[in-house]
């Protein structure tokens, strides 16, 4: 599970730190272990979603957030959602990892063997999905 690449992301996370302005902010928690993430999104005129986040938690949850930032910061909702869905399926062992979609995220495949850690790997990505949906519904409301 602890591949070199995961430990790298954990020790040197990408994109950590909250920025302004933002369209939506969410706070997600893993109730069994107290891992937390605050995540903000800002959608540009052409529909690309910028991410900022701050988090605390285990190596898997932190590395996964860093990988998420690399993969889906500044992409469209559709592209981001595709990545999240693929990650979920990979962690349920229902698809084999696709590097084009997940980038370094394919290194998280080993987490699937540890059900208690799957939530750690998903935390940031689920927060992104939640925030992105909130931002887009706000957009519509306007």
């Amino acid at each position, binding site marked *: 599970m602890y591949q070199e690449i995961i430990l790298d992301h954990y020790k040197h996370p990408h994109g950590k730190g909250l920025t302004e302005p933002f369209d939506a902010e969410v706070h997600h*928690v893993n*109730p*069994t272990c107290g891992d937390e993430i605050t995540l903000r999104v800002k959608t540009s005129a052409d529909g690309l979603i910028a991410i900022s986040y701050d988090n605390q938690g285990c190596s898997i949850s932190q590395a996964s957030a860093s990988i998420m930032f690399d993969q889906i910061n500044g992409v469209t909702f559709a592209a981001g959602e595709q990545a999240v869905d693929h990650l979920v399926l990979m962690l349920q062992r229902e698809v084999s990892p696709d590097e084009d979609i997940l980038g370094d995220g394919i290194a998280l495949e080993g987490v699937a063997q*540890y*059900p*208690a*850690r799957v939530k750690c790997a998903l935390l940031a990505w689920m927060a992104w999905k939640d925030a992105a949906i909130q931002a887009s519904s706000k957009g519509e409301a306007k």
Partner: protein
Amino acid sequence: MAPLDVTAIKRDFPIFNRTVRDGRRLVYLDSGATSQKPVQVLDAEREFYEKHNAAVHRGAHQLAEEATDAFEHARLNIAGFIGAKADDLVFTKNATEAINLVAYSFLNATLKFSRGKDLPDGAERFVLAEGDEIVVSEMEHHANLIPWQELADKTGAVLRWIGLTDDGRLDESTYANVITNRTKIVSVTHQSNLLGSVTDLAPIVKAARAVGALVLLDACQSVPHMPVDVSELGVDFIAWSGHKMLGPLGIGCLWGKSEILAAMPPFITGGSMIETVHMESSTFALPPKRFEAGVPMAAQAVGLSAAVDYLNRIGMAAVAAHEHDLTQAVLRELAEIDGVRIIGPKDSTNRGSAISFVLDGLHPHDVGQILDENGVAVRVGHHCAWPVCRRYSVPATTRATFYIYNDMEDVQALADGIRSAKKFFGV
């Protein structure tokens, strides 16, 4: 459908290796109270303890993962048995707790609402106003009566009930009267544990739906004995116990529609049902966890899952057909004994194998005692359905109930036992 191979089935149940009362064959006719357990169920439970025991949903070590897997696989399997999704199945200690859980949802929603506290979306359906009505029937087991009496007592709601016909059925002619615009929930049995009558669901569900009431079905005597598919019943909840369907003691089930469970505030609170906890206040997990506070009965869930496998191998349609044959035989045999009066439907249509009777001039306790001395285990008393006894003006009944390990020889043993009781007491 092939008839059950009762001889082979019996070999799976270790208890039939013993005898009772000085070497008599055990004729177990008390499965309505609790069923016997096959070795497959006992082995599954034991294997859990010997190989995978840990507190589920709590650890990150291998045993905890295996225990959690086993527990959640059991949930999926048991839910599948009634045509449900895993997430809509809540484990309780018995059916009684399951019914109380729903009754207390009303109480808790009502109290929190009146104090302006947080409630889940949709909880309005569980908020009672003074004078709102709760409907049960006169044939309910105490487990589906007293929780509602208590709810009424504590909220100012009114308990109303559907009466019974002389032949032991719900009196449908009274539905229109009893189920009104004030009715918030209709909670009735799927099969009476005393009378054996099976409820015709369509009319009662229709009456409840027409006034927007929720419907809870006490399925304690149906899920173990006949195919039950919640997607076809049209009700909002079903509650039943594991121990009456070959499963271990100490586990019951509540199934509810997803959106209805989601709308319910918690009942028993504590560990594992939370989202966040501060000293000042807490928020709660989604169902089913919201309703499963504390370390759950994982071994029992695994045992019950093995019971489901066992019943699936036989097939629930075959189980029902087998019991139907036995029911017909018992009714026929008892009709031939002078002085026996069946309390409940006298023919086998829409009827399960719980057969209650009284014997003129003899108290059920004495009938049961003589049967017991002949190795025939029946239950005597009011069977936790005292109002039914009152309705039919009997102090108590003798009740024989049948399951997959019973056969025609057992029916004969019952009839012979009743005859010897008559002879002994000279009635």
